[in-house]
Every structure is written in C-alpha cells, then in structure tokens.
C-alpha cells in the first residue's frame, strides 16, 4: 500500500517542469560520462531523430508506442495498482498479433491487420488480468507479480520464435505474409497508423479519467480504497477494470511494433518500451492530458541515444542507461506530502 499511495497522487505543474529538467540533465550526464561530446554530436542527434523523413517516422512510431505503454502504467497507477508489467503485456499483445498473422494471414486484406490489433488488445488485457487476479484474490503484491510476469511473457515469445514458427536466419519468427498490414504513407511507411492509435488511446484515457464518473472512481480508489468502498464506488471492480484497460493499451503497443516496425515477432520485441512507459507516466505526474509529452521526451532519448551511440561507437545500451537513471531520479522527486 505504501508504494501505491506514493504513486497514485498526481503532481503539480512545477514538479513536472522539474522532472523534465531532470530527465534532460540525466541523459546529457550519462552521455557525457560515456565520453560522447554532446555539442559536436548534436547534428547527428538531429538527423537521427527529426531531421529526415525516415528518422522522423521512427521517432513518431516510438513516441506512439511509449504513449501506449505510458497509458498502460498511468491508468492502473491512478487506481492504486502499480503495474510494472507493461513490458510483458506488450509482448503478450505482440504474440497475439503474431498468432493471427501467421495462422490466418490472408494476403491482401486489411481486415487481418485489424483482427491482429483486436487480438493483441485482448491478449494484453488478459496478461494484465493475471496480475490483477493474483492481487484481488490472494493479495499478491502487484509490483512483484506484474514484474515477474514480464519474464514469463519473454519466455513464451522465445519459444514461439525458436520453436513454433522459427525464421531460418534471424532470432525471430518467419516474416508475416504481405497484406497483413495497413496501407503505407510513402516515406513515412505505416508510422501514421501508430500515431493514430496513440492519439485515440490518449484521448480516451484523458476523457475516461478526467471527464467521467468512472474516472473519478479510479482516482478515488487509488487514493483511498476504504472511502471508495464507503461511497459505493466498487473499488475492486474499478481497480480490475483499470488494470485491464492498461493491459489493453500495452497490448496495442505490441501490435504496433509487430505490424508497423518488425513485420515478425522478434525476440527482443519490447525494447524495454514497457519500462520506458512507466518512466514517461511518472515524468508527466500521471496526468493523462500530458501523455504525448512524456512519450516524446523518452522517444527522443531512446532514438537519439541509439544514433549517438552509433556515431560515437559506444553500446546502444546507452539510451537504456539514461532511461534507467531517469526512472531512479523521477522516483526520488516524488515528494511525500505529509498531512498537516
């Protein structure tokens, strides 16, 4: 309970500004420590993120994915459920989409792609539902269960890529048949579809949390389950639904990665986007309206970091290190506001 009480509270405007500053400073700090010259590398950073259509498409897609995984953290967090399983829920969604694409892949029909998305959303929600069930039924700590379920999902993905539909060369499934995808937009490929999904989820998350009675019950449950029970907000049901919605968003992120980026289930499909989403949600102080802001910040770090790493010939893990440092700093800036 202590952890969730700490996290369920949204934060004030200046805290968010402080966090953005922290994230930027931490990223630059990590780069600097790894011997990357921040100033002379800026042109490469620009080219690698926004400077040309291909990198712009990549950055937009990653932004969309992180928006979705941030929603996967944000909605359950607001209900007091610390969902660290965005990663596993994303993988579950990707597996769902893969199963559809490789079993009933019917070339030339956009309906297959739509079905992939639907199945991915359901798979993500169900995967989150396991953690939710363990929490509600047995009181299992959700931080641990959702985190551990990530590894279960990775292992299943590994089994599928290595044993069920293995590719002949790469550590991935065989590529999806043509036609199981969305119409392309020239140089931007199918990135606009990713953006469309993210915008829809963003709008829905904002509307649900800030403009519905149910949203008030989510926030109320996160802050005080006892008072929520008293006022008839059905806190258990509210929390379960929030977790399922979060899982669905992560599942959708998995579908986006499969259909837009990889066109196959690759072994490290998630690229830690699930964890990055948590960082993004914390960065924006769990305010749904700011979802894309947090996502853009971290997309720039991940995509730009990868570019810089390539230029400076250091490990691409540099962006992950930066993100991890950010998460630690963000957790440290969550103030414990004492009662008066």
């Amino acid at each position: 309970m202590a952890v969730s009480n700490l996290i369920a509270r949204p934060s004030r405007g200046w805290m968010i500004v402080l966090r953005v500053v922290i994230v930027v400073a931490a990223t630059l700090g990590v780069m600097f420590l790894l011997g990357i010259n921040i100033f002379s590398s800026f042109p490469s950073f620009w080219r690698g993120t926004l400077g040309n259509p291909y990198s712009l498409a990549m950055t937009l897609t990653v932004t969309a994915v992180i928006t979705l995984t941030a929603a996967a953290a944000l909605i359950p967090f607001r209900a007091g459920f610390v969902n660290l399983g965005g990663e596993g829920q994303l993988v579950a969604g990707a597996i769902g989409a893969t199963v559809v694409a490789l079993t009933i892949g019917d070339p030339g029909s956009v309906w297959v792609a739509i079905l992939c998305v639907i199945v991915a959303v359901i798979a993500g929600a169900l995967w989150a539902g396991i953690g939710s069930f363990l929490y509600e039924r047995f009181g299992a700590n959700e931080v641990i269960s959702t985190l551990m379920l990530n590894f279960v999902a990775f292992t299943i993905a590994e089994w599928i890529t290595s044993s069920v539909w293995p590719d002949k060369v790469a550590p991935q499934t065989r590529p999806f048949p043509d036609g199981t995808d969305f119409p392309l937009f020239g140089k931007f490929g199918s990135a606009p579809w990713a953006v469309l999904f993210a915008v829809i989820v963003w709008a829905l998350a904002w509307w649900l949390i800030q403009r519905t009675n149910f949203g008030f019950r989510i926030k109320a449950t996160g802050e005080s389950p006892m008072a929520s029970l008293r006022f008839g907000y059905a806190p258990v049901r509210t929390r379960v639904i929030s977790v399922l919605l979060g899982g669905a968003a992560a599942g959708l992120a998995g579908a986006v990665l499969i259909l837009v980026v990889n066109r196959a289930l690759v072994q490290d499909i998630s690229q830690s986007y699930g964890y990055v989403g948590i960082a993004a949600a914390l960065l924006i102080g769990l305010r749904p309206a700011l979802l894309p802001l947090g996502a853009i910040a971290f997309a720039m770090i991940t995509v730009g970091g990868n570019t810089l790493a390539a230029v400076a010939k250091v490990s691409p893990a540099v962006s992950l290190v930066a993100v991890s440092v950010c998460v630690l700093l963000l957790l440290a800036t969550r103030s414990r506001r004492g009662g008066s």
Partner: protein
Amino acid sequence: MMTDSQMGRAPALQASDVTKVFGDLRANDSVSLSVFAGEVHAVVGENGAGKTTLMRMLSGELQPDAGVISLDGVPKTLRNPQEAVASGIGLVHQHYSVIPDFSLLDNLLLTVPGGSFRRLTNSQRRQALQFLRDEGFPAPDRTLIKELAVDEVQRFEISKLLYVGARILILDEPTAVLGPIEIDRLYSRLADLANEGKAIVVITHKLREVERYAQRVTVMRGGRTVLSQDSCPPRPALLSAMFGDEARIHAEEELETASAAAERLGDVVLDVSGISVLGSDGRLRVDDVSFTVRAGQVLAVVGVEGNGQTYLMDSLAGLQSCTGEVTLNGKDIAQLGPRERYEAGLRAVTEDRLKWDVFRSASVSENVLVHEYAGRGSLGYVNPRGKTVVELVTDVLHKFDVRPVAPKLALSKLSGGNQQRAVVGRESTGEKAVLLLSHPTRGLDVMGAAIILEDVRSQQAQGTAVVWNTADLDEAFVVGDVLLVMFQGRAALLVDRRSTSHEVVAAAMSGAN
C-alpha cells in the same frame, strides 16, 4: 492592557514580536507571549488564529522570520526540536508520539538524548524504571502503550517530558479525547506541576476549561495576540477577544440554550436492537446495545474515548459488521453496505475523516459531490466545474463557513477544521432520515461548533433523527435530547437529558455505577 503581576521575574519562556509568514499568509504577526514558572497559561483562539504556529516555533519545529524567543530572559535560537528539548521545553502533541507496541520503559528510553547507536547502561535502565514507578506506572517494562487508556497515555507523555528535564510544558488541545473526570485529573496534575515550579501552556478552545483552570489567559486572533492577562476575563469579553465580531457573539449562548425546538417528537426512525460488534482483534467492542431515535430527536452518544463508541457509530454507518437488528423507518438495514444505507436515507460523518470521509487530492467540489459519482452511469459525468454544480457547492461552503470558498482547490489545502466543516456540510445537505455525526465539532472553534449545532436544530425541525457522538460531556448536554453513555462497550446509561445531571452522567462515563 497587560497587567503583569509577576513583573519582578523574567518569564520562563517568552516570545517577543514573533512573526512567521507562509506565502501570502502571516500566520503569526508580531505575536508576544510570556509564560512564567508556576502558572498554567491558556492560549485560546479560533481555528487559524495562529496558536499552532506559535507553539511550533516555541518548540523548535519552525523558526520565526522575525522576533525573539527568550528563556529566563535570555534570547535563544531554537534551531530544531532537539534544541528545544535540551533547553527544557516539552511539547505534548494532539496526536501522541508513542509506539503502541513498545513497553512504557522502551518508549521512555527512546526519548533519552544521544546517538541512535548508543548503548544504554543497566543503571540508566534501572533509573528509568524507577522513575516510571514513581510516576505511578506499576510495571513499566511489562506494560505496552497500547494496553493503556487514552488518559494514561497522555499522562505517560507528560512523564516522558519530565524525564528529559522539561520545565516548560506545552500541551496542544490536551482534553479533546478525555472525559470530564479525566479532564479534572489532568488539570490537577498540571496544577501540581505548576506548584513545583514548572511553566505550563495549554492550547485549547474549550472556554469552560480556561475559566476553571487557567491562571493566565492569552487570546490570539488572526495571527496576533489580542489579549493577555492574569485571571480569565468574563465570557463575553473572552468571546469578543476571540472573534471580534460583536454581532455573532451570542452564538455561544444560543449553543447553551437552543434545544427547545426538539419538543415535538415524531415516530421512531432508527431502531437499534441488541447490536454487538467484534473488533478485528477478537475483543467484544460493543456489547448488546439497544436504543431508538425518533424523528426530530438528537441522541447523544457520550463516553470516554475507546469505550466502543467508534465501533457503534461505524456499525450504524455500515462500515463495520455487527450482529443484532438495525431498522430505519421499519426497513431492516443491518446487512446493507454503506452506499445502500445512504440510499435508504442515512447520512454519516465518521470519526476518521481521512480514512472514510474525504479524498484529499480531489477538489473541494468533488469532495462535496462524492455521493453523486456512485449513482449515475459510469460514463456520465458530474462536472465539478459546471455552473449549477458550483453554485450548489458554494452554497454548502458558505452555509458551513468553509474558508476559503474555493470549490476547485484541492481539499488537502484546507485546514483540518475547514475540511471537517465541508464534510459535515455535505452530509447535512439534502433529504435524509437519519444523520450520524461522530465528533462533528472536534477541532472546530466555538463559531464552527455553533454553525453545526444550528444546522442540527434545523434538521430536527425537519424531522431528521440525529445520533451525535461526543467525548465532551458539556456538549452532550447541549445537543442531546437523550444521552447514551457508553462504558466498556455497554450502554451504561440511557436517559432523558432533563431527568439527569452532569454528575450522574460523568459517573456513568467512568464506570462508577
């Protein structure tokens, strides 16, 4: 205005023109206070008068922005509470700072100054043990704090301060949770300590206590000291010093006399028959209690804290399971949850505001509207910023004098007293059959209490049955038509107010029957 009979001596503790500013708020504005050894000094004032800020500066928790604090005439900077303790200043908070699962001895030893990793010698332990025995705690190494009654814990808190050498004791609202006999006992202890040469400061808003027990009185209003004198002034002078607002001063007298409206009683609305509550530790907390409340009647539940009143009130509100029968207008509600009881016409202000009544990070408006968010469809929305909604909320805030009237503000930004007013306002607004009020005036000043009482009188006129739980005997006699005295989970006394006396009820509260 200051008639200082003790002029010759320097005060044990003195604040001179002390100022503390929080943002735009001048919480203390050139406040002066002199406390002499050998006196019980009452500091009174309404909510937000600046009493607590002053005490926090005197005990080193806050540092003044301007002004001087002196001890025995020597200016002294108290940078933190440890320095205040080292200088002989001890503060008893409203919420006790003890560890319930530790023994008295261990709790005492925790306060002994020194590093966290120090090792206590056996002689230190023996000395502490002997000290507590002398203070009247028989087996301090084998008794846990949680086994003590509330007033005993408070007595222990005072002993603790004496052990570390406190000669100036500051008590913040020490009688909020005590019964009349315990209050008397506390003040006689404080008088003894004063006679031994200690300086005692009591922060309170119970005027009766000020009149009965204080040698000197300082009144604060709006962050300033407005009166400081030997002996208590007559009540009208005291009230006008506290509130300044002559027009509303008579509220206190109204509070004393106003229950004539309750003469015409209606049918039985709430019928409680043989209810018992088992605590989570397996102890019987409420033992076979029965009573009825009629339309337009106020039942005052009164008892010393911890005699089952909380369990009784919570079980009536549906927050605590119980056995026995509870009917509301003939409908059996014993098995219903809190929301279903709300729909049946029951409203409740609980004792534990933070746990049951409010969402601190939600806005004031949302907190007033909480019942609305359950009823309508999930995807509908009661917009707390909508025009009619804001008007409705603003009315409630005005009526119960919640300040500031800012529906959009987070509830946590309001002071505790204002949060309490908002909650009481929410529950008393609208149609209802039964209103349960647990300590509705706790932490409120005289004006706040008067507003709530006035509202309850109008509820009575409309035929609402009211159950009002209080630990304050005087309050019980003012509000209640019928008094239910709880002692050790049982109904020790159930009596019409007009056919009993303070003495009889006080005796029942202490189990002397």
